[in-house]
């Protein structure tokens, strides 16, 4: 019964969020198959076979992607980089943050607290936001993206997302300052950055 009373503690919440993110899909898909088997057994079996075939065609890539993930985890020292990003401020740091974001791997309930620590080290909101946004680039996942969507798609999306991460970082920081109830936050970023964002293309 331990932990029952602290239902709003972050740990409990992370467990719920983690469970939903990981297994919510399993529950939904299992339900869909149940419905499919009742509605049309033949088509449901065909769907199962199709899914299995697609899975077998990419299973080696998936194993490789997770292999890359493991290598990144041991070679990128998250804590060291985090401390470094808290030190200086400037657009260069925001770009560096975005670069860090692209190699950052881990589930949301590991990454958020890590970035919270980065912020508490004195990092700007732009740094935190750029890391989070560039996190969508997913360098280790690129082989998977190439396999399913083609290399042109993967390349252009990666470049655009990276550039977008830097702009988004600066933009969100700007908005945080505008709507800040706490005037001390203004000190964190004195430099004015292009708030009017041009759609890139």
């Amino acid at each position: 019964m331990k932990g029952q009373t602290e239902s709003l503690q972050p740990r409990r919440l992370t467990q719920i969020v983690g469970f939903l993110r990981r297994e919510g899909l399993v529950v939904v898909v299992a339900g869909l198959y149940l419905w499919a088997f009742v509605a049309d057994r033949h088509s449901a079996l065909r769907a199962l076979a199709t899914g299995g075939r697609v899975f077998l065609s990419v299973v080696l890539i998936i194993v490789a992607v997770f292999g890359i993930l493991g290598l990144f985890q041991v070679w990128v020292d998250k804590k060291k980089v985090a401390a470094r990003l808290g030190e200086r401020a400037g657009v260069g740091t925001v770009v560096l943050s975005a670069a860090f974001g692209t190699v950052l791997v881990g589930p949301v309930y590991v990454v958020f607290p890590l970035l919270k620590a980065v912020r508490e080290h004195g990092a700007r909101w732009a740094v935190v936001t750029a890391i989070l946004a560039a996190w969508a680039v997913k360098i280790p996942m690129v082989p998977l993206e190439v396999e399913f969507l083609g290399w042109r798609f993967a390349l252009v999306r990666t470049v655009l997302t990276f550039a977008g991460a830097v702009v988004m970082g600066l933009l969100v920081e700007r908005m945080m300052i505008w709507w800040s109830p706490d005037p001390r936050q203004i000190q964190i970023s004195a430099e004015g950055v292009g708030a009017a964002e041009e759609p890139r293309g």
Partner: protein
Amino acid sequence: MPIDPTGVVLITLVGAGYAATRYRSAAKARQAARIARKSLLGMLPTFAAVFGLVGLFQVFVPASLVERWLGAAAGPSSLLVGAVLGSVAAGPPAAAFPIAGSLLGAGAWMAAVAAFIVSWVLVGVVSLPFEGRVFGWRYALMRNGTCFLFAMVIGLGMGWLL
């Protein structure tokens, strides 16, 4: 079952990476392998679900439906649909690509598919409460809102470039 050459090449490269890591530090290589195995096993149910979904999608969802909602002819609204689908979907990023591939194969507009992937990873309706608790609500809402818009902007850029 044809063996995919991309996968073989990739596995070989990753194997070389592990060999090099092992050469530098056996403990590091062991740790990397342990992390890789653990996260792969942890994601196995999700992958089963995702590929199950891909199968269901290809058999039960008519291409005309995808084209109507996500096709290039639907224009800007397809971007919005893509971004909304990505936002409410809860799942690891690796799962987004097979599903996005199915959408693209069924005739969805590339821009809408890109918006779907970006918002899948960046905008989390399910993880919003957690993000709000860690960083504060103001930041969580602003970041997710901005990322949602950006998913569409990036999608638009993709549609324009490709």
